């Protein structure tokens, strides 16, 4: 490099002669010709020696120091050249490089890409030091050996980018064959044979030696020792010995079983699992006095919480002849008591309810028959109340607790009285903020709690400190400092307070470098950036940008860093490295539907159908990042005995670059018989726009055009209706849905409300053969009470009515025409089943064909559901008591609140069902089982094939399975 050549040249002896000569010009040159010099203003800001000034060796030295301090240069030289009666200086620099992308290629999982990247310890934006590559390779080797690769070859390669001073590093790895497990060698005092331990660990010879195999095996061994009462066993892997000739790895373990420890609790009944939970020796895997004492305290607290408020626990340790250890926790329970009342006296500044919210002790109530009390809990509650007062300016506050017991024949009751002495409140006298040069005091005062007249306390100052430093940090002042001074004023109840801020220098965004894009358009990324060149450097803005980039759904990793973070410069380059997610996904699924789908479709005695399990298979294909945009193309298909469905969807979130507007287009083919009355075939195209202006409110606008055909052979209705109902119908509908969702968790809400209003119109002007309007309203709300109980309710109302001209229906094989305004049967509302009325099987509520008795749906819907949800066992199993009421009606004018039928066949009444359900929490949501009992199932007449009219009643009992809450 030419700088090195220059370095060999002797330094000039002329500097002393140049002292005082005027500097004509100062230039900057980079060693790499591809790298442009610094821009003049930035360069000038760093110099101490300026053009026009006299030559000064000291100033030149200082200028070198300033340039080096930026962290951007590995080497700096200055040359001087006399020009006329002055001197031209040139600063020659060799740039430093910073780490860009780090790729490790050629390694199949395990390990994961993240593990490999972490093993290199090469971080985005950090200084690139070639010597670190060897450490990186050593790290990779360690991770690869953990996963059984002992014969790896790693070849690093670098690609430098002079314009950004970034270097991309690639490690090409040839892993060879993964080693397999050889022998397990155990040294030390294991108490069990190596064969036994290997069997316990499931370490069979020939298995692939991955880290999960080894770690899972160690866990099993530890559990094995624990169950054998070797609670202090020490187990470690000493080394792995690789044999290249056989590609086997021997594991060498060193085990010290220690002494057998048995732990018992005498004097009180307690389960083994509870003992293991309360005595920390089990979890810590070691035995010492501190842990034994902690076990005493935990057991005492436990018995106190069970109502034995005076319980005492004492541990006795015995060593038997074989040096095994027995620890006996001897319990004296004392009387079982209940906490009747908690009285708080002397509090004026805070209301009693405010103090009680911070306390854990509770008086007895139906959910806690003994209340909740222990001496430990009481101490913690006193400390919490004390802290509350002190944080509000009461430094001399005192609180003491007095306990009173009342004994009667059957029980002992405890009363706790807390006496509060608040003492004087100290408030802030004079308050000021100094040192704030960039922001006015008013702006900063809006961020903090302290102000003249407000309560004074150190927690308030600490909170204000955090708020101010956080504000400055996010405004581009990473070196801001905060100090405070409190001086008593003449009034002993006042403290003068001063906040002193040292802002430090402000940092700005210089350039934004984005790397890693293969398919994604750069504009998509740019639109998510919340900062521009020249903006103050703000950590919160960077985090917000990172979140937005993740929200696009295009990237599996979004890494952001500041280039050269250790250098001292005010203008920083921001690095964004993006790893695109796999574009194509193929999913194959198997499932089953359970319900009343089965039975012969022609059997009028089984209009509800028999309970049947219908297996299904689904195939989904998805492509994201379509055209370099955050668009998705998806194909979903599902085949079962109930349904054949295929849908092609194109989704375009952030449509036309509006972040609140999502668009989608869909084509669906669907053939379904989930209504036993008919099998329908539907081909539909739709276009939908979703507008989400706020977090809780969404507006959907949708145009759908569909052709619905009902299979004539499957229709189970009056013969005279078949010619009409079986004709295919074109429906073109424009609809809007308004949704307001304040639920905390949509899949399993604990509080909040969910309201929807859906209105649609099908009209000939929209291409529809049938004209009708539709309106559906729904409101659900969730209310917590008494701890873990939840009352959930949902009400639903729907109606649709035809309007305008009738549509003409040609009867095949006849010359007759029929004009009808009837809404096609496939467009009817259907209700019944796990997600609507649990007194009916799926889609079995409402009007029925007067001849066949099969459900035909309706044009008016009214439903109300009430659920009481409560925990049953642990965190995962809960129960539900429910009441569903409502029905479907043929027309809006048929809607009735009658609690029972007027006569057989009159289905205009409110059907009610009660029931019980179980919910089991899974990662995908709660799995639901409901058992419903219809209190007033419908009675109706059907005609048999022989022409007889018989009365049928739908089943009272319904068994329903599904996933997710019912509403």
């Amino acid at each position, binding site marked *: 490099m030419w700088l090195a050549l220059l370095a060999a040249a002797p330094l000039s002896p002329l500097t002393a002669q140049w002292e005082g000569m005027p500097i004509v010009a100062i230039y900057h040159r980079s060693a790499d010709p591809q790298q442009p010099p610094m821009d003049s203003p930035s360069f000038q800001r760093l110099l101490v020696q300026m053009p026009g000034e006299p030559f000064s060796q000291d100033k030149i030295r200082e200028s070198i120091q300033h340039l*080096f301090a930026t962290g951007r240069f590995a080497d700096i*030289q200055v040359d001087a050249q006399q020009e006329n009666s002055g001197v031209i200086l040139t600063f020659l620099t060799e740039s430093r490089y910073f780490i860009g992308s780090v790729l490790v290629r050629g390694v199949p999982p395990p390990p994961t890409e993240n593990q490999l990247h972490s093993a290199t310890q090469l971080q985005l934006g950090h200084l690139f030091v070639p010597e670190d590559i060897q450490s990186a390779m050593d790290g990779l080797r360690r991770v690869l050996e953990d996963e059984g690769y002992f014969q790896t070859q790693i070849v690093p390669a670098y690609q430098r980018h002079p314009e950004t001073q970034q270097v991309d590093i690639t490690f090409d790895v040839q892993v060879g064959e993964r080693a397999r497990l050889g022998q397990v060698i155990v040294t030390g005092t294991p108490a069990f044979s190596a064969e036994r331990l290997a069997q316990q660990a499931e370490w069979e010879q020939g298995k692939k030696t991955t880290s999960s195999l080894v770690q899972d095996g160690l866990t099993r061994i530890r559990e094995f020792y624990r169950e054998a009462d070797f609670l202090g066993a020490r187990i470690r892997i000493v080394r792995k010995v690789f044999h290249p000739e056989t590609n086997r790895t021997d594991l060498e373990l060193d085990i010290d079983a220690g002494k057998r420890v048995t732990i018992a609790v005498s004097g009180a009944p307690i389960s083994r699992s509870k003992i293991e939970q309360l005595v920390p020796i089990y979890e810590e895997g070691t035995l010492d006095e501190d842990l034994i004492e902690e076990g005493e305290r935990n057991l005492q607290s436990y018995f106190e919480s069970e109502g034995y408020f005076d319980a005492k626990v004492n541990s006795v340790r015995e060593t038997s002849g074989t040096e095994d250890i027995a620890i006996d926790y001897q319990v004296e329970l004392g009387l079982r008591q209940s906490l009747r009342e908690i009285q708080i006296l002397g509090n004026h500044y805070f209301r009693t309810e405010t103090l009680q919210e911070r306390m854990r002790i509770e008086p007895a109530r139906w959910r806690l028959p003994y209340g909740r009390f222990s001496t430990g809990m009481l101490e913690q509650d006193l400390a919490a109340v004390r802290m509350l007062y002190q944080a509000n300016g009461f430094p001399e506050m005192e609180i003491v607790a007095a306990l009173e017991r009342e004994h009667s024949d059957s029980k002992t009751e405890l009363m706790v009285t807390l006496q509060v002495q608040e003492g004087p409140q100290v408030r802030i006298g004079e308050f000021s903020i100094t040192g704030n040069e960039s922001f006015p005091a008013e702006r900063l005062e809006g961020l903090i709690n302290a102000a003249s007249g407000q309560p004074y306390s150190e927690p308030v100052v600490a909170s204000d400190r955090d708020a101010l430093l956080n504000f400055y940090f996010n405004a581009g002042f990473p070196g801001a400092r905060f100090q405070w001074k409190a001086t008593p004023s003449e009034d002993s109840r006042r403290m003068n307070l001063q906040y002193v801020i040292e802002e430090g220098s402000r940092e700005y965004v210089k350039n934004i470098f984005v790397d890693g894009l293969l398919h994604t358009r750069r504009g998509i990324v740019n639109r998510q950036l919340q900062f521009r060149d020249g903006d103050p450097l703000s950590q919160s803005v960077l985090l917000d940008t990172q979140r937005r980039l993740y929200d696009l759904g295009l990237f599996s990793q979004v890494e952001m860093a500041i280039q050269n973070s250790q250098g001292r410069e005010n203008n920083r380059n921001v690095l964004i490295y993006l790893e695109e997610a796999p574009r194509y996904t193929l999913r194959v699924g198997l499932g089953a539907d359970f319900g009343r789908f089965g039975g012969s479709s022609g059997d009028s005695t089984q209009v509800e159908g028999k309970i049947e399990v219908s297996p299904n298979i689904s195939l989904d294909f998805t492509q994201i990042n379509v055209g370099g945009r955050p668009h998705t193309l998806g194909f979903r298909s599902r085949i079962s005995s109930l349904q054949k469905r295929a849908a092609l969807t194109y989704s375009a979130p952030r449509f036309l670059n509006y972040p609140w507007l999502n668009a989608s287009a869909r084509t669906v083919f669907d053939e379904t018989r989930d209504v036993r009355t008919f099998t329908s075939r539907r081909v539909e195209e739709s276009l939908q726009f979703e507008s989400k202006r706020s977090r809780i409110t969404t507006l959907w606008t949708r145009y759908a055009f569909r052709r619905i055909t009902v299979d004539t052979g499957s229709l189970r209705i009056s013969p005279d209706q078949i010619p009409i109902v079986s004709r295919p119908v074109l429906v073109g509908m424009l609809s809007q849905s308004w949704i307001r969702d304040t639920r905390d968790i949509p899949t399993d809400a604990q509080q909040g409300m969910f309201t929807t209003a859906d209105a649609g119109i099908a009209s000939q002007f929209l291409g529809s053969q049938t004209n009708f309007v539709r309106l559906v309203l729904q409101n659900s709300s969730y209310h917590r009470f008494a701890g873990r109980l939840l009352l959930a309710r949902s009400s639903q109302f729907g109606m649709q009515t035809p309007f305008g001209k009738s549509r003409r229906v040609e009867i095949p094989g006849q010359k007759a025409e029929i004009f009808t305004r009837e809404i096609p049967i496939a467009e009817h509302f259907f209700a019944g089943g796990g997600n609507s009325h649990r007194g009916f099987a799926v889609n079995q509520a409402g009007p029925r064909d007067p001849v066949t008795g099969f459900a035909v749906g309706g044009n008016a819907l009214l439903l109300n559901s009430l659920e009481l949800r409560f925990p049953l066992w642990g965190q995962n199993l809960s129960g539900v008591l429910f009441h569903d009421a409502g029905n479907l009606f043929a027309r809006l004018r048929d809607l009735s609140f009658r609690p029972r039928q007027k006569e057989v066949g009159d289905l205009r009444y409110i059907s009610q069902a009660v029931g019980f359900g179980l919910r089991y929490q899974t990662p995908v949501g709660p799995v639901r089982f409901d058992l419903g009992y219809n209190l007033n199932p419908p009675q109706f007449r059907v005609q048999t094939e022989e022409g007889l009219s018989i009365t049928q009643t739908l089943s009272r009992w319904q068994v329903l399975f599904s996933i997710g809450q019912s509403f």
Partner: protein
Amino acid sequence: MDRRVKTCFLLLAFSLFPLRAEIIDRILAVVGDQIVTWSDVVAEANYQALLNGQQPPDSAELERKEVLRPILSRLMDQTLLAQAQKAFLFTPSENETARLEEVRKRFPNEQAYHRALAQYALTEAALVSHLERETNLMAFVDYRLRPQVQLTPEEIDQYYRETLVPELRRQGQRDVPPLSEVRDHIEQILTQEKINSLLEEWLQDLRRRTPVKIFE
């Protein structure tokens, strides 16, 4: 010759033999996040020569490795200690004024003093800066290492018997003072020796832990 023709010849000569750019300063070493430049080395060499009453070195002499390396090494050690001092929050007392007076007194008068400064390419401010740095570092080293020095009576006795007495006799001194009279003096010597040894270990440790790069 016509002046214009002379000017053309001169310009032609200059274009054929352009004035050479000279490297006037560069980085010689990086110690942590600090640098040591060639001008630092020159200034240090001149400063040491002034204190030692030697001739100021010229550039060619300083370029020789055997001359450059010790000065560079000393500056690097000073930089390491200065960085350690920052981390330790040590505030030294200001004794450089006294040292400056010591230096002045070596010269018969003010003019001689200022002539000497010019000869060694030093300003008084630069001299004071050097003295201040040295004084601070010496005070910091003493502060850090002196408490670690523990002398035993055996060590003092051994030095008296095996080093001091033989040296005095070698110098022809007949009356060797008793141990009690020279104990304080021996303690000072041994303490200083131990501090030097500890300093050497400390500097080696600092060099191991701090990223150091020397530009050859």
